[in-house]
């Protein structure tokens, strides 16, 4: 097991190296550059050249890349071209907001997706199952920006029962930032009302972000449960005269969830991508929104290092999933 983890960690090196090159190339392919953002479109050519020179953007691309890599290898992820703030500081300050949103979304997706998957699997071939299949296909195909806007339009504008943006009502609650998790900070500040308000702010973005993983988890759970239902050991369990709920929980679900765990891990990683759109729609001050703003401003340094950190997290989440998979599955654990 330790060997497996070490091998996976070593594999991270080529993956991340390849990523830095890809991200670097893509940022430079974007039209425009940071100098335009800083000086505006009416700036003179001399001023533009001056800013480019001070940011090192006048040098050949390979030199820029090696300079960036040199910093990375010394643990320096650079500073924003525009605010001159340390990228890591900015990232860490915003990341809790993204985790909070992603957790809410994935909890929603798991809590609804697994029971729905089991329910439709046990009613395979009925109209309930067909309805579930149609809904989950819609869930998988609906674009996040469209779903987000529709949710906002229905639940915040047509029927204003939920807040449409932000993480908390800033007018009524002043919550000192401690952990940058709004719900946690509200509790630390002794503001139960603020805690509830923070949860209410989470609902719509979490629904928007969680719908795709919900649909995917539901599909995989359904397929996996159907497979397991036909297994000999399920028949054995019934032959033992076990209660239905024991057969369901101990024999069917434990086996059926193995592939689901992998999918949950992958989906958690993919949430980071979805978070960019969701955070933009709901003005959620997380990493997604930060990267979106950086792309708009062509702040190469933030894009490069921000995406790199997200990628690192994505790969680590998958490693954790693989490890937990081994713990769930004795056949892998012992090999």
């Amino acid at each position, binding site marked *: 097991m330790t060997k497996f983890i070490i091998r996976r960690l070593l594999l991270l090196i080529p993956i991340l190296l390849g990523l830095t090159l890809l991200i670097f190339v893509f940022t430079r392919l974007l039209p425009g550059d940071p100098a335009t953002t800083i000086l505006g479109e009416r700036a003179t050519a001399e001023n533009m050249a001056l800013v480019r020179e001070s940011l090192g953007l006048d040098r050949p691309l390979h030199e820029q890349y090696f300079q960036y890599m040199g910093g990375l290898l010394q643990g320096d992820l650079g500073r924003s071209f525009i605010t001159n703030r340390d990228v890591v500081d900015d990232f860490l300050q915003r990341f809790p907001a993204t985790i909070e949103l992603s957790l809410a979304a994935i909890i929603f997706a798991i809590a609804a997706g697994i029971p729905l998957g089991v329910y439709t699997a046990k009613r395979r071939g009925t109209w309930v199952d067909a309805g579930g299949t149609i809904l989950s296909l819609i869930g998988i195909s609906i674009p996040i920006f469209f779903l987000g806007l529709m949710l906002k339009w229905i639940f915040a504008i047509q029927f204003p029962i939920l807040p449409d943006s932000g993480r908390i009502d800033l007018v009524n609650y002043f919550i000192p930032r401690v952990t940058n998790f709004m719900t946690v900070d509200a509790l630390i500040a002794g503001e139960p009302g603020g805690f509830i308000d923070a949860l209410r702010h989470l609902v719509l973005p979490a629904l928007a972000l969680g719908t795709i993983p919900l649909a995917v988890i539901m599909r995989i759970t359904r397929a996996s449960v159907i497979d397991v239902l036909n*297994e*000999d*050991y399920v*028949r*054995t*369990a*019934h*032959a*033992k*005269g*076990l*209660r*239905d709920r*024991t057969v369901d929980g*101990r*024999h069917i679900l*434990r*086996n059926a969830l*193995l592939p689901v765990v992998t999918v949950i891990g992958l989906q958690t990683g993919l949430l980071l991508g979805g978070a960019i759109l969701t955070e933009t729609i709901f003005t959620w001050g997380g990493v997604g929104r930060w990267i979106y703003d950086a792309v708009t401003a062509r702040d190469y340094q933030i894009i490069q290092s921000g995406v790199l950190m997200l990628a690192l997290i994505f790969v680590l989440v998958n490693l954790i999933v693989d490890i937990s998979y081994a713990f*769930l*599955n*004795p*056949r892998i654990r*012992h090999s």
Partner: protein
Amino acid sequence: MSRTAPDPEALLSVRDLEVTFGSGDRVVHAVNGISYDLAPGETLGIVGESGCGKSVSSLAIMRLLPKPAARVRSGSVILEGQDLLDLSDEEMRRIRGDQMAMIFQDPMTSLNPVLPIERQLTEVLETHRKLKRSGAVDRAVELLELVGIPAAKNRLRDYPHQFSGGMRQRVMIAIALACDPQLLIADEPTTALDVTIQAQILELMRTAVTERGTALILITHDLGVVAGMAQRINVMYAGHIVERATTDELYGRPRHPYTVGLLRSIPRLDEGRGELVPIQGQPPDLSRQIIGCPFADRCFNVLDRCREEMPPLEQAPSAADEHLVACWNPAEGERLVPSGFESELAS
């Protein structure tokens, strides 16, 4: 016999059991009205080729047929005076694993791969015997020792994949015997095992059921397996019992042409290296309506009447003991297998 009342002495009486699969245009008649009795402690062999209804009829007795694909059309399954087909699902669940247990063909897939075998044993005891965890674990060790698993105590936490096929089947037997059932159904228990292991497992089952007075239904396609085990044998073909007799009688004087064919197709040690005699043709398609005897097209003794009317299962002419055969023109009962060969087959 098929219309007779259930024998009050019998542990299990199956009457006119009929099972179909599918619905609408394509209904497969898997079991077509079979009847038999099983005495307490008796070992009954059910023999036939794949698809003859032997497994399906046993799953119907356990009420483990896949729903909604399979349907019991009619009949009764009376265990100790109680018709199992009338019970509610919950009442049936209490009987399964307690009064009646089942062992399946493939020990590789019949155990849950993600649970240690301890759990798979104790859950039966906890469900039916209301044992607490520690009591159940002690009993689990006893059971594993009983089925001949070395160092049983140390293997409780092991998972099925850490056992060999033979050992897994021993675990399955331990699970089945956990609550001392009166009836054990073993569906091809040795088919997936090596030949050397087969004999060990059969011996284990024989000792276990003899010691406890458990009745055993042993389902197999292998005539050698039942020979040394069963007191009585049902031969099934296309969802019917075509012959039923004591083991000696059946091997000694087979009457149904199908049974004769089966016995002729066994390789024999005491004869020269002649070619085996296979039964010609294929079993009939059970999704079509069959008029007359389903074996007629493959039969060496076929009469015109065979294609018109299904023969009833009746006492064979001039047979000793109880010897039932469903045939209009049964074989004479020539001795195909020399005396004593039954035990040779099994050893």
